């Protein structure tokens, strides 16, 4: 058929509204998919950078001997930026009475390649991040070292044979957790000063770290080149190994975004199906006329196929553009959070958007239009001819397969897809049966009611089948909206619960038993909130069931059981925030040599329930049997331990104490007093990290709200499409009622009742489906605990009734505003 006719029909159809909804649904599906997948791609690159920050580089070569020159040369050849770090424990001496074992870290210009080095002039003074490192001849000390050495800014200390000027306090290193050189407080110096100190001798315990940053391809090719050359005591550390505490939050946010994107696709597909179906129904008569005038089936198919192609093209282009705007909005919202400018999203999201559009058009929009080609021309003489139901069932099955495949491909998770499909199946199966029963019973109830109700309930029953289908569609849309709100609320709630406003923000370690009263007095005097004091000792697991474990550097294959050194404590009860995974807890007064292991630690040393461990604690040894395995919430700001023993077992061993406490920003200077009173304790400042985590959580929560808004829009579109799908019938009946003398109030009241009942029932069904899906998602996907959501059970039906009622009556408002004869003529 002629191109001009296609355009003319398209242009005119635009006015009828169905094409608008079809296009909007398509634009929404594509834009959400493109927006969310671009954002997730960029978020992933930012996440990698975030991880890289904890390594201070994209990759690190670690060696116990100096890094070979050719390696450095090869890195530069690959356009990688290198910087060297050398770490070793050594004495720092202020004078004959003041010396301390320090964990020395010598850095070169460029350090850190990722993240920031934080420092201050005074020990607990204002934190700076200037990109500087200690100049040649200068050192920065950990705040505790100032007290231990009794030095001030501008004084000198000696490392080995070299006097060095104290020019600052080191407050935060990005790689503090991955580059540990002994247990003393940190002393940061310049690598240029190392030869003059003369402390590095053959046999010294030194760790050389070559930090590298650059393009992922260059990192990969350097890794490939250097890996075969690694010798004894040499290894590569990559970002995958450095798990930042924020990573899990962003990981879950990413999971949520992908889930939301999948739901948007389901909703948009439903809207597309409804709009296309109504378009098809309204066009059956057109096609009959065209056929009576001599148009053939292939021409009809070509006309609608071409119309769909242009709508698809326009929808995809608009969707991609809008998706780009959406991801820019996400990035803006999260702008302050991302440590580096996230990389480009590339073309993949556009491809995903185009495939989504193609699938939506092919499986949801096309089937009702394809059926048009089969419409009989006889309809011009007999308008009451139906459409083959068998074909609709086939289309439904094909559409369902397509949507499951699309969700699976898009979310990359069978669990996410399974949970949502389970919820939807409950809504559809249970819903359809319940709706049919309720609707068929409507008239018998209506018989006893007033005329308003009788009209409304008769209407509900008369279109029983169509209403049941419409109700299931409303229920699906409401379910997906409820589901997303519930998951979002519990995700954000859980994150915020992790970091309550009064969470401890400092750790204190290395407290001698006799110092405990002094610390407690200090806390009491200054009104500082603290956790209980945990006894802590350090030791090494050397064998399991008498089989000696290799040391880390002797390991022949990655991941094999090995020796582990760890802090451990003793406790009568299971520590707060821990959960027993296997075995049982001991009686408080037991003197049996039991031990409780953290799950990953147990896997590192290759130990299971009932295994006998041999430990070395200082010069002593201890044997204990594994009584249970625990999981630990590492994101809580409480002291956590890999191994816990019964009190009587460990009390004979020398131990120190640790605790965590909360300092307000204005109390920060108390730390100087504290290290003055107790110079040997180590204070770890977490307030900076916690502040950062809180910002991340707030920003991610805002991003989730943004996505939720988009999903609500998609849900609204489905509801509008659903209402419109039965509009002609309702308009005709209402116009007839008015024509035979019904007052406006009766017609409007009957419409209100009809839509309120439909919406309320749909909301109730939606609550059941959402609860099922929320259970699946929370327990299986997000690894959270599930609790029923009573609020949803109340909100579902009432919101459903109000939204569907208002939308329905609004869509049908013409029936009371326009003379009935006009409506009857139009429909």
């Amino acid at each position, binding site marked *: *058929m002629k191109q001009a006719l296609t355009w003319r029909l398209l242009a005119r159809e635009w006015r009828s509204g169905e094409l608008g909804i079809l296009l909007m649904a398509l634009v929404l599906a594509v834009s959400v998919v493109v927006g969310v997948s671009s954002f997730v791609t960029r978020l992933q690159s930012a996440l990698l950078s975030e991880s890289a920050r904890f390594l201070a580089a994209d990759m690190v070569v670690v060696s116990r001997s100096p890094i070979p020159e050719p390696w450095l040369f090869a890195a530069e050849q690959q356009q990688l930026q290198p910087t060297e770090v050398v770490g070793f424990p050594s004495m720092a001496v202020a004078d004959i009475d003041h010396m301390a074992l320090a964990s020395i870290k010598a850095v070169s210009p460029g350090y850190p390649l990722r993240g920031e080095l934080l420092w201050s002039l005074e020990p607990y003074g204002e934190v700076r991040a200037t990109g500087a490192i200690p100049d040649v001849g200068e050192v920065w000390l950990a705040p505790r070292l100032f007290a231990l050495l009794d030095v001030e800014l501008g004084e000198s200390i000696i490392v080995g044979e070299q006097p060095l000027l104290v020019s600052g306090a080191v407050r935060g290193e990005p790689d503090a957790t991955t580059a540990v050189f002994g247990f003393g407080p940190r002393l940061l110096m310049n690598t240029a000063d190392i030869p003059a100190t003369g402390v590095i001798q053959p046999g010294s315990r030194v760790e050389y770290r070559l930090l590298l940053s650059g393009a992922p391809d260059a990192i990969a090719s350097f890794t490939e080149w250097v890996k075969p050359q690694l010798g004894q005591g040499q290894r590569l550390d990559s970002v995958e190994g450095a798990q930042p505490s924020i990573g899990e939050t962003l990981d879950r946010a990413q999971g949520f975004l992908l889930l939301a994107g999948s739901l948007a696709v389901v909703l948009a597909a439903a809207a597309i199906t409804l709009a296309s179906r109504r378009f098809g129904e309204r066009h059956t008569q057109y096609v009959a006329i065209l056929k009576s*005038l*001599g148009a*053939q089936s292939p021409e009809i198919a070509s006309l609608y196929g071409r119309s769909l192609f242009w709508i698809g093209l326009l929808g995809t282009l608009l969707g991609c553009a809008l998706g780009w705007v959406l991801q820019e909005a996400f990035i803006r919202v999260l702008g302050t959070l991302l440590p580096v400018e996230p990389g480009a999203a590339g073309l993949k999201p556009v491809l995903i958007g185009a495939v989504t559009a193609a699938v939506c058009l092919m499986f949801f929009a096309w089937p009702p239009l394809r059926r048009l080609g089969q419409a009989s021309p006889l309809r011009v003489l007999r308008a009451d001819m139906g459409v083959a139901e068998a074909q609709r069932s086939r289309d439904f099955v094909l559409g369902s397969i397509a949507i499951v495949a699309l969700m699976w491909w898009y979310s990359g998770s069978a669990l996410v897809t399974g949970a949502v499909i389970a919820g939807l199946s409950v809504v559809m199966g249970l819903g359809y049966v319940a709706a049919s029963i309720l609707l068929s019973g409507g008239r018998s109830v209506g018989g006893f009611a007033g005329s308003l109700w009788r009209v409304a309930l008769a209407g509900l029953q008369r279109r029983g089948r169509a209403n049941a289908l419409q109700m299931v569609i409303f229920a699906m849309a409401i379910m997906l909206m409820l589901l997303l709100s519930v998951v979002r609320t519990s995700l954000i709630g859980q994150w915020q619960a992790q970091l309550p406003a009064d969470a401890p923000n400092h750790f204190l370690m290395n407290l001698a038993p006799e110092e405990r009263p002094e610390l407690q007095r200090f806390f009491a005097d200054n009104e500082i909130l603290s956790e209980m004091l945990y006894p802590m000792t350090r030791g090494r697991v050397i064998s399991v069931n008498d089989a000696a474990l290799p040391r880390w550097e002797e390991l022949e294959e990655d991941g094999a059981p090995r020796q582990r050194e760890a802090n451990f404590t003793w406790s009568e009860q299971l520590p707060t925030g821990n959960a027993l995974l296997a075995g049982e807890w001991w009686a408080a007064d037991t003197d049996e040599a039991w031990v409780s292991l953290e799950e990953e630690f147990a896997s590192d040393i290759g130990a299971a329930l009932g295994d006998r461990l041999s430990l070395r604690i200082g010069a002593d040894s201890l044997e204990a049997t594994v009584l249970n395995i625990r999981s630990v919430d590492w994101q809580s700001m409480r002291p956590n331990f890999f191994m816990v023993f019964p009190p009587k077992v460990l009390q004979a061993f020398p131990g120190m104490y640790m605790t965590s406490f909360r300092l307000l920003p204005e109390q920060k200077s108390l730390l100087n007093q504290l290290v003055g009173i107790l110079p040997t304790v180590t204070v770890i400042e977490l307030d900076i990290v916690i502040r950062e985590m809180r910002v991340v959580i707030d920003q991610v929560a805002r991003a989730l709200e943004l996505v939720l808004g988009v999903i609500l829009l998609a849900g609204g579109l489905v509801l509008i499409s659903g209402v419109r799908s039965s509009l002609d019938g309702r308009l005709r009946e209402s116009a007839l009622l008015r024509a035979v003398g019904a007052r406006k109030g009766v017609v409007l009241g009957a419409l209100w009742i009809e839509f309120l009942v439909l919406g309320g029932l749909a909301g109730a069904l939606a609550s059941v489906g959402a609860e099922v899906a929320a259970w699946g998602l929370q327990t299986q996907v997000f690894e959270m605990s599930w609790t029923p959501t009573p609020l949803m059970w109340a909100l579902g039906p009432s919101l459903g009734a109000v939204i569907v009622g208002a939308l329905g009556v609004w869509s049908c408002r013409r029936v009371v505003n326009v003379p009935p004869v006009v409506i009857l003529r139009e429909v």
Partner: protein
Amino acid sequence: MIKVSQLLKTVPTADGDLTILRGVDLEIVAGTSAAIVGASGSGKSTLLGLLAGMDVASAGEVWLDGVNLSALDEDARARLRAEKVGFVFQNFQLLPALTAKENVMLPLELAGIREAGSIAERFLREVGLQERLGHYPTTLSGGEQQRVAIARAFAREPAVLFADEPTGNLDTRTGERIIDLLFELNARASTTLVLVTHDERLAERCDQRFSMTAGELSGP
């Protein structure tokens, strides 16, 4: 021109097959007009659908301008309609999304005729609607809509014109003017006209008159 022999049409229903046409025989000479009259439900419209090739018979044959419709598939019958058949319906059957002119252009465009626009304008002038070219069907009166439908039917200069109760939705006066127009154009174009109606006065104006009762045809 139109020849029907032993035409049978049954449709399946919940209570078994329902026979709508029972062995209808009919012959209409080219260039003449014929009326098929009968009460509602007598099978007139079903017969019209079969004559125009819009439906297939359960048994029997329909010959239209020398072509056996029973031997053609749906698309071949559509092609035949495009070439040789025009329609005027009781409820006009105009496409509401198209203007009066575009509605008349439709069959011409389907046939790939380039001058569709000027031909449509000429025929709309002939039916007195030259002032209404850009109007949509909903803004036209019933009589005007039927005149657009007549213009559309004659625009392709068909060999046969089928009219299904063409005055059924119109008042008597408008109906008479429409019929005058229909017969005038028909005479000018020498088209074979087949009219289905229950209006005896209208039937009397035709050359032949057939009567349909409970699926059986009698006359002329």
